[in-house]
Structures are given as C-alpha cells and as structure tokens.
C-alpha cells in the first residue's frame, strides 16, 4: 500500500489561528505550554479530566474518542506531551504510558489526518549511544537499557520513525532535565539536580567535619543538560509555529538542551554554598565501578540509584539544529536563573 501523506492544508479557523490537539496538557510541562500555544493557536486538550475539551484516555482503544466527529475539526498539529516521567517506574507502567500510549496517539493522529505530529521524548532515549556528542537521531538497541524508562522512550521514538511516512512532518523533541522556571523556579517534586541539596543536607555534619576535600561521585567536567521548564515550553511552542512555516518533511528530531549545560563540579559547589555548608573543597571519584558509587550513595545519603546513574554519564547533546530554529540564546545557562532555581527549591522544601 503506498503511504498516503495527508496533503499540507492550512486549515485555518475563522480567527486565522491554527488548530492544535494536545495530550499531556495537565503535566509539569503541559501547564506551561498551554498558554503559550493559545497565543497563536486554537488548542484542544485530550485528558481524562471532566473539564477537558476532548475527554479521552490514551490507555483505551482509540483513547475512547469518537474519531469520526473529531475528524471534522481538521486539526493542523498533534502535540503528544503525555507520558510517564519516572526513572524508577516498573517495566509495565513505563511501557504502557510511554510506548503503548504513543502508539495510540499516532493512530489517532493518522485517523484524524493531522499533517504534523510532535512528540516529547527525553535525552534518556539516547542513553545507549556510544558517541561523545550525541546526535538527535541516535538510537541504539543493541545494548541493554539501564532502566525501563529509557527503553520505553527509545522504543516510542523508533515507532514514530517507522510510522513517520504517514505524516507530512514528525517532530521529535528530546527534552533535557527539566527544572523550575526562570521566574520563580516552582517545582512539583524533588528530581534530578534537586537531589543534590537533599543528599548534602543529610550529611551536613559529616561534610563540615571532614578533614580534607570531600569525595563525591561523578566526573568533574561532566555537563548536566538542565532546561528551565518555561524555556522548554517556549521551545515546544516555537516548534509548533515552525512546523507551519517550514518546508521540511519527514522525521525531524531535536535536542531541547542548553548549548553547554551545568558542570557537575559547579552543581556541587553551588549547592554547598547555597546550604551554607563549610567544606575543604571537593574531589571527584570517577574511577571506582559505577555500581559501587551508586550503591554507596544510596546507602549513605539515599540518593536514588537511577538518578545518579544519569548524573554520572551525561554525554554532550548536539543542539545546533535546535538553535537554528529557535535562535542562539533560546536556553539560558544555569548562572542566569540560579536565584529562581534556589527560590523554587526552598519554597518546595518549606511547604512540604
């Protein structure tokens, strides 16, 4: 059967706005994306909640939607942000919410003949890439994955690649590690770099009294791809706009990561400073086996193994193509939003 590509149509609504169908509109990222999309588009959200414009559940057949009726609305873009972000999730949950739900999202977008499909993935999908500078298209299935989360994200990407001929354009966005926004840094849970202050707080006395420079896991110059959530949302909205203007077709993948990223050493030093912990410098332990490092960190400071796993091995992510579209300075580096980062963290801690 020849693959039928829906013709590119400018199905503009009376107001001249494009029409977007969105999943995951209630999540950490989705909440920020939604108002930005609404500035230039008519957005309808698929969600389980009663107040949603389109009520549906991606774990059900066709998400429980009436596709015939929805087809008449002629959406221009499908944005799939829904997913499970939990590095410690079970195989079953990760696959159900990341792989199977993506399959259903693709099916819905195909049935509704939406020309553009956008997907939010994660840099974790490329965890098996052997390259030092990971490219946005890299996927490697020949090695076992460290956790079900990364495997599910990688498989979802592969599935989109395999089905991309049914769309005019598929945009895959691999998000870096999301942190609080640049204005007040609000967060909803402790995750990623926020584990560092938690861990230091637990051994504050020990660090204070340690006679020499304190040993910490990780490579000194490793970089963490931190992205403030409002900037990530701007990027998603930016790509949605770009999808309507560009001549590009087929499968396109991008890293939503900062150009440089935060150096691990800086994260540790800034955290110690922020917590007012006096110390005699830090030293990095990277030669020891990774399993030993993660286990020791888990036993001593309850640092989640799977989180540290990533902190220890982040490579660099190629975001040149992203900058071409969104502009050079689209993602600020950590220093420029450090204040709001700590404000959000402190607020979360005090309200807990």
């Amino acid at each position: 059967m020849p693959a039928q590509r829906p013709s590119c149509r400018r199905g503009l609504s009376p107001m001249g706005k494009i029409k977007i169908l969105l999943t995951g509109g209630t999540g950490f990222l989705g909440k920020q994306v939604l108002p930005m999309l609404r500035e230039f588009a008519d957005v309808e959200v698929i969600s389980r909640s009663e107040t949603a414009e389109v009520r549906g559940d991606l774990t059900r057949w066709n998400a429980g939607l009436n596709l015939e009726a929805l087809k008449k609305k002629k959406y221009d873009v499908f944005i799939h942000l829904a997913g499970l972000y939990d590095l410690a999730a079970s195989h079953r949950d990760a696959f159900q919410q990341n792989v199977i739900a993506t399959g259903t999202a693709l099916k819905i977008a195909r049935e509704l003949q939406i020309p553009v499909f956008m997907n939010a993935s994660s840099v974790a999908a490329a965890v098996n890439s052997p390259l030092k500078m990971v490219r946005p298209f890299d996927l490697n299935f020949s090695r076992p994955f460290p956790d079900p989360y990364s495997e599910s994200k990688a498989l979802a990407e592969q599935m989109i690649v395999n089905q991309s001929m049914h769309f005019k354009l598929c945009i895959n966005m691999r998000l870096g590690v999301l942190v609080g926004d640049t204005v007040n840094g609000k967060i909803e849970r402790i995750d990623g770099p926020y584990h560092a202050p938690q861990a230091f707080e637990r051994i504050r006395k020990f660090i204070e009294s340690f006679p020499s420079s304190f040993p910490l896991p990780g490579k000194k110059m490793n970089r963490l791809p931190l992205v403030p959530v409002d900037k990530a949302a701007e990027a998603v909205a930016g790509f949605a706009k770009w999808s309507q203007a560009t001549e590009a077709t087929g499968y396109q993948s991008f890293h939503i990561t900062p150009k440089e990223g935060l150096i691990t050493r800086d994260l540790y030093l800034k955290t110690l400073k922020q917590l007012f912990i006096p110390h005699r410098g830090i030293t990095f332990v990277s030669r020891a086996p990774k399993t030993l490092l993660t286990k020791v960190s888990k036993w001593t400071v309850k640092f989640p193994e799977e989180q540290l796993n990533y902190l220890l091995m982040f490579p660099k992510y190629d975001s040149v193509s992203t900058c071409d579209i969104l502009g050079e300075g689209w993602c600020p580096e950590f220093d420029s939003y450090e204040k709001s980062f700590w404000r959000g963290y402190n607020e979360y801690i005090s309200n807990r």
Partner: protein
Amino acid sequence: MSTFRIAEISFGRSHWDDSFSYEYVGHRFEVQRFGVNFSVDLVKKLIQNLRMDVDAFALSSLPPVIKLDEKTYVHRQYLEIMGMPCSVPLCDGTGLREISNLNSMIKLIESGKVSPEAGVFFPAAMLSAELEEFLRRSYPGKVFIGDAYSMLGLPLMIQAPVPGLMAFSKLALNVANLKDMRNNTPLAETQIQKMGRSVLASQVERVQYVASDYPFLLLFDSAVEFVRGKDLIVWSHHPAAEKEAQKYAPRSVVNLFPEEYKMSPYMNYSILDATLRLVHGKTAPLSVSEWEELINPRPEVRQMTRQYTVSHRTSTQAKISHGINRVKNILLREKEPDFAFVVHALSHRDLLRIPGLGLLRKMPQKFNDPFDRLVSKTPAIIYGSVQHVISKESGREVNGLIYGLLSTPKVLKEEDPEVTYAKIEKICYDAANRGAKIVGLGAYTKVVGDAGVTINRNSPIPVTTGNSLSASATLWALAEVVKKMNLVKNDPNTGLVDGMAMVIGATGSIGKVSAKLLALTFKKVCLVAPRQNRLDELAAEIRQLAPRSEILTATDANEIAGQADALVTATSAFDQKIIDVMRLKPGCVVCDCSRPLDFDKEDAKKRPDVLIIESGEVLLPGPAQITCDLGLPGKAVYACLAETALLALEGQFESFTMGRDIEWNKVKGIYKMARKHGVELAAIQGHMGIVSDKEIELTRSLALSRLRAKSGSR
C-alpha cells in the same frame, strides 16, 4: 457493514507497532498492534484495559505451543496469558499456523519453487516444530537446527536427525519452561553469544534455506550474517519488518502465509485466526479439523499434515507448567474480595459431599437429623469464590468470597436464631478482615429471625439480603415468560400488554412492588387482598403512577382469576388454598412469590397448560467464574448474590435491602443498575427446577388447544 476491532498484542518488541484496517467478506476490521517487550504483566494489563473495547485479541510472538513426539509442550508464560479472564476470544493462531504452513510448504515443493535437498536451517526449530519435523522426516540429513545457539547461547548447529535429538529437545523444553522468555532469546547479549554469531554464520554456509519468521529473526538485530545470500522462509507479512529484513540481504524471500488471506500488507496467523473466528462467530479455539475446513487442503495433504499437527497427550512439561501456574495463583494472586456472600447446605446430601464424609452415605436414615445437627455446630467454611465480575459500563472488576454454613434448612429453622446470628456475624468479621466491603445473605440465612436486621447491626460491614434484585429478577422472569408464551398481544397504541395481570396479596411489600411494576406493562391490573380500604389506597397510588392502565380491586381472587394472563401471588397463608388452580385461564403464567409456596407440585401436575414459576436467576457480567457449585446450571447465580456484586461494582456499600419489606424505589434502582452493568436473566426457576424453552413451548401448545376447545364448545 459491521466493524470488528482486533487488538494485536505481540509478545516481542514494540518497534513494529502499527495500526491498519482491511475488509474481509463484507466486514471491516480495525487492527492496532501493541508490542510488550516480553512482559507478561503488560499483556495482562492490556487485556484488562482493552477487553471492553475490542472484539478479539490476536496474540502473536507468544512463547510457542510445541507438538513433539505426539505430545504438547507449552511454556508457562503462554498458559498464564491464555488463562486470562476475558469475554472476547484470545487468538494465537497456533493450530492455523501448523496446518497452513505445512500445506503451503508441500505445495511449494511440488511446484519446484522450494527444494529442501539444498538444506534448510532453522535458527529456532522450536518455534515451528511441525515444519522442521516434516522436513526432517522427508529429507533426512538436510535439516539443520540452531536451537542450541538461540536458546542456550552455544554456537552449535545440529544436523538432524542425530541420535538423542529428541531427548535433547525435550530436555531443552523443560529447561526453557523454567526461565522467562526474554532470557532465552539472543537478546540476552553475552560476549559468548556475540562470538558465537560469526561461528554460526560460517557453519550455515552450505545451507540454502533459512526458515524463521520475522519477529524472531529481527531479534538477532544486525547479527544475521547467516541470512546473507540465502532463501529466507517466513510466514507473516509486515511492511516495516520486510524492509528491515532486506538489509540482511537474503537472496529471496519465500512466504508460507496463504496468499488468499492476505487482506492487508500487514498480516499474520494470529490476526487471521481472530478474523476467521469473528467472521464465523466462534469464540472457542478451533480444532484441527475445523481449521482444515476453513483452509481446505487436499485430502492426501490433510492425511500427511495430521501426523505433525495432532497431538494425543499432554506432556509432563505441560503438566508441570500448569502446576507452577496454579501454585503461583494460590500464593501470589489471591485477590482481595470486594464482597462476601453466605450460603448454606440445602440438604443432608449436600453435607455428604464434603470430602471424607462421603463414607456416611450408607448411614441409617434415622441418624440423618442428629448428624445434621452435629455438623451444624462446626464453624462456617469458605466454600468458594466469584471472580472477574466485570461491569459492562465502567469496566470495573470485583471479586467475591462465598461462605458456606454447614446447616441444612431444617436445622436453621429449629435452631435458636441467636445461634445463627452469631455464626453469620463471625463470617462478617472474617470477610471484613479479608477486605470485603459488603456481605450478602443467601437462601435461608436471610429469613432467619428478623431477616438480617440484627446481623446488620452487629456486623462491621454493611449487610444486604438481596431481596430487591430477587423481586426484580422474578418479575423480569415473568415478563420474559409471558413474552415467550406469546399468547397475549401488545397494544400498538400504548405499548402495553393487552391482557390482565393479577396480584394476590397486593398490599404486602412484595405484592405492592409487583403491582406497581405490572401496572407499567399491563393494560389491566387486578389487585386482590383481604381488606378493601387498604386496596383502595393502593389503587389510588398506582393510578397516579400508571395512569394509562386500568386498575381493578377484589377481595376474593377466585371470581376473577379466570381472566388473568399473568398472576403474582405474594401471600403468607399457611395451609390455606388462596386460589383454586383449576379456575386459572389456560396459558396463564403464575409467579409464586409466597413462602411457603401457594402452589405445590400437585397443582402443577393438575394444570400442565399453566406455567408456574418461582424466581429468576441471573448471569453476572464479564467472564465471571464461580469456583463452587451453587446448585444452579452453568454460570447462573442467585439474584441476591448478584445484588451484592452489583452494589460492590457500583461502590455503593450500604445495607441496600434489609428486613422482610422491599421498597419500590430500590427494586427499580437495582434493576436499572443491573441493566447498566450488564446482568442478564439466565434461568427461570419453576417448581421442578429450571424451566426450559421446550417446557414453555409445550405449555403454550397445550394452552392453545384448550383455548380452542373452549371456544369450540361455546
């Protein structure tokens, strides 16, 4: 054109997930593939989530069913998946694959398109044992097997037949059974296996054919040197997989999948199995001969393939698998019950069914009663469970426990009610501790003493007698029988039944409810009760409720009984005939709700042209399983049990029905609830047990002839 939905669950990788649709003999089929990456948990979760939305599941790439040496070997995980409770068929295409593949292979050999003399290599012969066995026997020495490599990681290629191959295969199958599927595949990438790959490729050089289906072949990823330049034999169609396999540079691809069933570019035996079953309206797996009917091979081919596809015995391995699963189910999966239900032994004979007590069958009859009394002193037992009751509307699943009191009705009647209360209260506490949120009382346990009020007061969780649904189901049964008798017509203008219904004991609680219900469906309703003033009150109330029907009242039933087409009796008249059965109209349907009954067996014998029913039993929604014998045929359960289950499904944990009275609103409410969740009427209970359709037909013809005789004599 009807549309069928098929969810294909592939045990393999999810790379190849896709969705598509096709048409076959006037039906449209909508298929979506879900890859689960070897997770049994995820398969179960998917089946649970989708079983309300789809018409069939096509399970592909499952751990295989292997027929070897006329015995069947099945993997433990296969049994676990296929044993999932599901109201739609689970199709894995096993029987179909065996017959169809052999059939195609024989055709290809005859037409010279495949010549196995050049050697055939099976990377995993286990997955297509019938094909391998057929070729091995027809071309000795030309078949090579790579199972040692693909299953155990040893870079060996076995040239079959070798002595001891069968023993080795059986051993491998038994070992494989203990491991989860994933660890048996080349996906578990050890260094040894990686080295072995190139060794294997060099061994395969002199063989021309490689037989392996796409899903398994693609598990080897880029390490499929052994396909380069060979003729690849496969038996499924998948555009993306075909494209991927081209990268391995086979010389050609031979597809054994029958061309006439390639309705879509994406097709495999599991989907074909589901399609054929849906089109032919079969839910159970098809037998070899049924598949042969559908595929229709030539008789001599049929003869030839039979020896490879029919197995006579279950292997020890399969038995062990069953055992492991059963133990696992007991240890790990005892579900927290949502509700509990209490029944009791219905007769002395029921007690003798307890293991060990069967020896007492020959006991002199005079000891029966003392024995029953003695046994009733023992505490209640857990008699069985009701599992997988799934709402049609919400998809919610509930499970229940059934407790058995070892007391016969006679003992319960004689015993001090307080003793029975205490026993049932104990059950309530036990059920609450196990997680149940509501208890239902069955049979005589809800009649004892004050009919549940005391029990409910002392129980930690709500108790219901289930009488609301019992009443509702009984009237439901009455309506059903009247419809089946087909003697009275519906008035096309009002939609009401053009006949008369009569309620004796209309002012009692059951009578009131019945009268109101009947007034909604019958054109004429006659209320009978001893006191006229109360009758008038009721009649006024009903006229308001059902203004379209005509309400009559009478204090003596016998005068007017000859006109009634349907009769409900709900009296409590001991040893007194309320109505003479000989006065009833031929073809009248009598619903006897009185306890003790108003009509006895003698009455029924006197009037074979009148149908007397007692109550209606119902079917629970979903693939409900009842693990014990309730004395009802098939999957039918008592309506009172169904009420308890319905309350649990609805999350309405309250003592819905209590005491001897029932309320109109509740009867109406529970009936709506029953229809919403998918409860169906199963069987109609008469004086002599279940009333069959045949019996109804017989009564109808007798009634018709009597009516004719009557009008003739006039």
